[in-house]
């Protein structure tokens, strides 16, 4: 590597020509954010109801744990290339892979949130005549909200770091800088792309950490 690619990366980031147009940093960051949000949102639609159900009833817990474990073991690069060969270029293939990537954290967060509710509290709610639905929505979910949000945090950080793979099969996002830099030995550009991914991950992580603190149920918040 000639010069210092790390310093050159910051020069690259400071170059105003990289901050405008359809391949500029704001646009690519927005695309990257969009892929992340979409992937986590679709995964949440599947994983959160499932996690709450498993956590509340205990039904299918073994299957859920096994499936989540297996999903964690699947290499995302393999999934993206496999799905892309099946469905063609575009967002479908990477999105499927991101959803699979995000589900385990969300599922674990939701089910452990419900399970973490003190059995005495749950019994008390039941004794008061609450229906199971009411127990879930008014007792277990509010009490476990920080854990649910924690699941979102984990899933989001994973997907945001992986969303660069969207660019492997014809999409945009910050992965464009990383693969272009890699392919053309333009390491400053590749480092700059990585720095942007890290920065985006940090911002999202902090936002969700804040949400996690805010969702702490009032009774359990420190005085």
């Amino acid at each position: 590597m000639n010069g210092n690619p790390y310093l050159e990366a910051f020069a690259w980031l400071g170059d105003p020509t990289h901050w405008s147009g359809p391949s500029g940093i704001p646009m690519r960051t927005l695309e990257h954010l969009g892929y992340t949000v979409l992937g986590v949102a679709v995964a949440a639609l599947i994983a959160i109801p499932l996690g709450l159900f498993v956590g509340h009833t205990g039904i299918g817990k073994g299957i859920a744990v096994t499936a989540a474990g297996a999903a964690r073991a699947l290499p995302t690069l393999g999934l993206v290339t496999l799905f892309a060969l099946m469905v063609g270029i575009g967002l479908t293939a990477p999105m499927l892979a991101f959803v699979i990537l995000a589900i385990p954290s969300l599922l674990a967060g939701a089910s452990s949130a419900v399970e973490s509710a003190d059995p005495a509290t749950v019994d008390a709610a039941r004794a008061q005549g609450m229906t199971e639905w009411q127990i879930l929505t008014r007792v277990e979910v509010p009490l476990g909200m920080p854990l649910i949000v924690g699941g979102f945090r984990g899933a989001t950080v994973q997907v945001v770091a992986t969303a660069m793979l969207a660019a492997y099969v014809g999409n945009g996002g910050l992965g464009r800088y990383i693969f272009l830099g890699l392919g053309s030995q333009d390491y400053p550009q590749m480092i700059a792309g990585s720095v942007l991914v890290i920065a985006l991950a940090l911002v999202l992580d902090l936002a969700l950490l804040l949400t996690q603190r805010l969702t702490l149920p009032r009774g359990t918040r420190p005085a």
Partner: protein
Amino acid sequence: MSWVLENLDVIAGYTGSHLLQAIPPILVAFVLSLPLAKLANSRGWLRTGVTTTAGLMYAIPSLPLFVLLPGLLGTGVRSPLNISIALSLYGLALMVPAASDAFRSVSRDVLGSATAQGYAPSARFLQVELPLAGPVLLAGVRVVAVSTISLVTVGGVLGVPSLGMLFVDGFRRGILAEIGAGVVLTAVLALLTDALLVLLGRALMPWSRTSTRPRTRARPRTQAQTQPQTGPQTQAGSPSPAQSNAGRQS
């Protein structure tokens, strides 16, 4: 399918190099996380710093790290050593917070009793603290193992031999069976390693048979109930990395 049957030797070769790259980082992450976690737990600000750093490291996309580390380390881009070092860093990012949680889950009272019974500090650590922290440590190692085995594949993009090479070659030649074989074998390696770790945990910690299942209700509640003094940090913090950060893959 026929591709798989005709290329068993290629697949076996890649599986071997895959494991050679994956196993050392798992061991390194485990061994190094113990002192680092103890150190982190000794000071509140240090713990915050370590947790934050670990989170930051975890957000670094792996492919660029694989390319950039050689410049810092003096290894070749294609050297498996480079991949192993990068994966050790990711492993530490997962394992240090997990180990820190594990040691915090051991009651101070128990440690105090051990000291009162005349355990020397090193004996107390090895015979009391480590076994009691064992179940949570095991949960952490399991996540590190699965994540590491999965991440090794990314090196395939750079030509470092691993099952990831099957993705790159299969993608270019349009051989679905080749990619599929890589995906399935990576998952099988990960799950087998995980199962081995569970068995190892049962052998080493026969008393904790029920709690070796990771990510059960045990952890959050244990902390809330047995360690009320840990307070807001535990409550508001993320669920353990074992729950949230598991299995990053790219």
